């Protein structure tokens, strides 16, 4: 039996997705940054993620796609170890690689051949290509890669041992597949990096390569001691001579034409790279000539003043989106399924429509018969009493403790004031979860056979507004959240910034992540319009602004077109299928964390979940079992009947707002009845509930 499981076996494919790779990197990022600063000797150095690796002045950009490849190895390493080792590996190469120093080409590089007449200084890669062709450049990169790892990671033997395990797991198959020159390059890389013993390589190599290995070993040893890249280049040329002596590399025929020479050298170079690429972790800057030049171009593109070109900005938006997705919380369902949920505040610019929204709200409340005043009349005294009973002691945060005289006597002045153990003193909490997909903004009949209007989200927002006022008056913790599936808006987004960010991130991610771009940009979003911990007064304008956008989507869109940089991102409501169960589970968890005795969760949607109806039903069941009452309201859609134990289907806006308010009121009243308060109005509430709300047996 094997002593170790390999990474490939323990890591399911979905855990190798780019957002998971980035999330794992984020855990090691602080330590990686510190190591990078140590290596660069620059305490100001920034290390960030980007779509292309580069090392600019005081900034290193790591491409998470490079890390992703490391997770494909069949090596006895853990995902956390790979996250660290792959990032450190990239940092070491980006910090250490600078081949721009110019020198005259050493004449010793042309032994037995005519050296060029000019002794003008050139950069190392130009000199090497001139002296040894493409194969010499490839051999140089293989050796320099190993040398940088040996020296750069000398202080981090743990991380280096992860690389060793990864390389060792690939060496046998790589040697089998490689051509003779590739085998020599693999051996050089592995010996310089001290990852494998020579005997192991000799056993896996072809006989003539094994013989060449013995001759080349002193040169490999010298590479370890090399002071700079020029010295490594000299050794690369010498090793290539050894390869030629043993027939591993092609010899130049006497009458070879220039194109034939180029072709021959490129074939050798390809054989060399193909071999060593099977073993090493690819780092673009030390991969080959193309990789080095591409990385340098990216570095230079930033310009001397650090100003970014359009491509950099797009890359930033893409990386930014990638980071947001990787940092999003993962929600687990009772079915065991898990998914990321983009949780953020609702865009603040919706306040801009607040004043117009308030006027529209008054009109709509009147038109749809939703009372906005005296909703809590008879309930207030009883709720207030219950709240008091919920107190753990007679003083609240900031109040003087009843034990103050004792503390004063003991000189413990700072303990005069006591903080309560409970975060909230509320016994009741209500969470309202509203479908925020574009279909909620679609026109639908106001009543049977009548004209149509976009009342879905408007009526839901009106219901939320009414409930919010009720809860605020009764001092009940209250939350309104909106959920949809689209590109996720930020709290500070305007219509302009949202659409710009969206197009840049989508374009950038398509370039760097291919098909995964859709998954990374079309996310499951959960916006907190009025969180539990904020005061209703501060959220009123936001909700009113949302109401305006919902009641008059065309007008809102027109205003956004007129002033896109000031207007809220009305384009955030896209027609896409929601995944209700993740939002429900997340909202329920937030609700339960409050510690309230009575918890009510109202979910409002106008279509079937794109997830699984079974998952949704089990999620609802699970939340109900935890003691939270879940009310499902379907707008013109009866899917709620299949998923929610307590449900109602509404076809008109007045019915929707009434269902929301009455449903919550009924649930609260029932909780009072359960606690033994048998008053006339609780019995009335039960009758009322039975006539409007359908409940499945045993729900």
């Amino acid at each position, binding site marked *: 039996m094997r002593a170790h499981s390999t990474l490939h076996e323990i890591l399911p494919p979905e855990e190798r997705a780019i957002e998971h790779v980035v999330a794992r990197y984020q*855990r090691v990022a*602080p330590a990686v940054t510190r190591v990078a600063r140590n290596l660069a000797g620059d305490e100001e150095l920034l290390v960030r993620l980007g779509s292309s690796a580069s090392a600019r002045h005081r900034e290193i950009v790591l491409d998470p796609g490079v890390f992703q490849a490391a997770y494909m190895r069949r090596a006895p390493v853990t995902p*956390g*170890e790979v996250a660290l080792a792959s990032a450190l590996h990239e940092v070491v190469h980006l910090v250490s690689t600078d081949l721009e120093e110019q020198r005259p080409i050493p004449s010793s590089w042309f032994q037995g051949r005519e050296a060029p007449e000019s002794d003008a200084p050139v950069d190392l890669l130009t000199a090497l290509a001139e002296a040894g062709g493409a194969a010499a450049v490839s051999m140089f990169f293989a050796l320099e890669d190993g040398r940088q790892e040996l020296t750069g990671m000398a202080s981090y033997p*743990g991380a280096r041992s992860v690389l060793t395990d990864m390389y060792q797991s690939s060496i046998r198959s790589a040697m089998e597949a490689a051509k003779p020159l590739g085998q020599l390059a693999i051996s050089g890389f592995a010996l310089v990096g001290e990852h494998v013993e020579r005997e192991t390589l000799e056993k896996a190599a072809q006989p003539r390569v094994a013989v060449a290995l013995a001759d080349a070993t002193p040169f490999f040893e010298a590479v370890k001691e090399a002071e700079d890249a020029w010295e490594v280049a000299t050794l690369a040329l010498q090793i290539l001579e050894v390869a030629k002596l043993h027939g591993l590399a092609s010899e130049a025929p006497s009458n070879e034409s220039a194109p034939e020479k180029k072709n021959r050298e490129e074939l050798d170079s390809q054989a060399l790279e193909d071999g060593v690429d099977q073993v090493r972790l690819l780092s673009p800057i030390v991969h080959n000539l193309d990789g080095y030049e591409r990385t340098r171009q990216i570095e230079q593109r930033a310009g001397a003043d650090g100003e970014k070109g359009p491509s950099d900005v797009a890359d930033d938006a893409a990386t930014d989106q990638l980071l947001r997705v990787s940092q999003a919380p993962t929600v687990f369902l009772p079915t065991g399924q898990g998914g990321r949920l983009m949780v953020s505040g609702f865009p603040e610019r919706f306040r801009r429509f607040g004043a117009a929204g308030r006027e529209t709200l008054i009109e709509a409340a009147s038109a749809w018969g939703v009372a906005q005043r005296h909703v809590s009349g008879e309930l207030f005294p009883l709720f207030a009493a219950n709240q008091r009973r919920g107190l753990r002691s007679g003083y609240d945060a900031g109040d003087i403790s009843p034990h103050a005289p004792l503390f004063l006597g003991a000189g413990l002045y700072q303990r005069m004031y006591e903080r309560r153990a409970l975060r909230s003193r509320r016994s009741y909490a209500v969470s309202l979860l509203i479908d925020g997909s574009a279909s909620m903004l679609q026109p639908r009949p106001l009543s049977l056979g009548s004209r149509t209007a976009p009342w879905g989200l408007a009526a839901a927002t009106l219901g939320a507004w009414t409930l919010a006022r009720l809860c605020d008056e009764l001092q009940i913790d209250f939350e309104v959240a909106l959920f949809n599936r689209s590109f996720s808006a930020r709290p500070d987004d305007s219509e302009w910034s949202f659409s710009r960010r969206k197009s840049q991130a989508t374009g950038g991610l398509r370039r760097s992540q291919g098909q995964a771009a859709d998954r990374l940009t079309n996310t499951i979003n959960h916006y907190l319009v009025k969180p539990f911990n904020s005061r209703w007064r501060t959220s009123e304008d936001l909700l009113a602004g949302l109401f305006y956008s919902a009641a008059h989507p065309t007008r809102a869109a027109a205003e956004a077109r007129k002033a896109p940089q000031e207007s809220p991102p009305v384009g955030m409501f896209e027609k896409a299928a929601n995944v209700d169960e993740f939002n429900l589970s997340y909202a329920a968890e937030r609700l339960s964390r409050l510690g309230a005795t009575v918890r009510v969760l109202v979910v409002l949607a106008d279509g079937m979940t794109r997830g699984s109806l079974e998952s949704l039903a089990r999620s609802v069941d699970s939340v109900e079992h935890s003691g939270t009452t879940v009310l499902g309201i379907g707008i013109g859609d009866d899917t709620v009947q299949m998923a929610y134990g307590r449900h109602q289907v509404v076809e008109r806006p007045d019915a929707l707002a009434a269902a929301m308010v009455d449903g919550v009121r009924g649930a609260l009243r029932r909780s009072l009845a359960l606690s033994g308060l048998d008053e006339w109005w609780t019995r009335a509430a039960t009758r009322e509930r039975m006539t409007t709300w359908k409940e499945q047996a045993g729900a």
Partner: protein
Amino acid sequence: MPETVVFTDPSGEGPPIELEQFEVPSDLPDHAHRVGKIPEKDPHYVDLGMLYRFAAMEDVRRRFPEGYQPLHIAVRGHMGTGKDHDIEQFAAMLRLPYYRIPLTGEVRDVTLIGSTLLHGDGKGGTESRWEDGEITRALRGPSLVNLSELNAAGAETLFALHGLLDRYAALDLPTGETVHLRNDVRLFGTMNPTDLRDYAGTQTLNKAFADRWVIWEKDFPVVEQIKTMVERRYPSMAEPFSDAISRLAAEVNASFTAPDVATRVETPMSLRTVLDRVPTGLRVYGKAADPLRRAWEEFVLPQIDTFDRDHYETVWSAVVRKGPKGPVFGK
């Protein structure tokens, strides 16, 4: 003739400093008590330069050059850098009774200086009697007073010490008595840096009080210094273990002292962890497959804040990943 002690510069730069040791006069009423307060030399102590600096200062004081005024040294450093140990070992070298007086937010001037207390007179009545506080008691004979956690005490408490620390060099007691700073008394202090770190109870040192001290910084030791300490204390520990422990500590502490909050940890690996806890863990788990990993899990990780755990574990993976094979001790 008093015996002498030689202090050598660990950096090899300065010349050795030879100083005469103190003697506790036999006619002191608390002679036996004071002699009992002279600390033992720690055979495992490694001077990283602080003791030599103390000795250099002492040497100047003894020569009492023109215009000289006695100065008092406060050592400032993070937890577990060995500040108090340095001062205690200096007292041991000079054969001075060592009084370590911890200052806390609860300490009042009466605790330090003294107060009049009521005592039974044996006849059914009471009489009031002056009782020296901790500092006053120490000042009445040869002593090295270490006021530890200087910046934890309230400023109003420390004001009472101003006269003692400056040119006046004496404490005026409410009884009318003046207790002068003797020539064989040395005043030292220690404190943690006042920044955003979690040193509960510390505060910015009052400027007037701080001005009465020479404040020297004590940094965390570097890899080689830690390794020397571990090897001095545990000569039989196998080198791969002492090497790994030293590297881990140096790396974590470099993260702790990083100025950038985004890349630093909030809990350092103190010398107590390095020299006491981890080696004990290695003895407890010496037979485990990976003794260092077990010691790390049981004796290091529980000490740290939850949010620092990822960073600690990353450092572990980068520096060690798989601990050395045993046996740990008995090289």
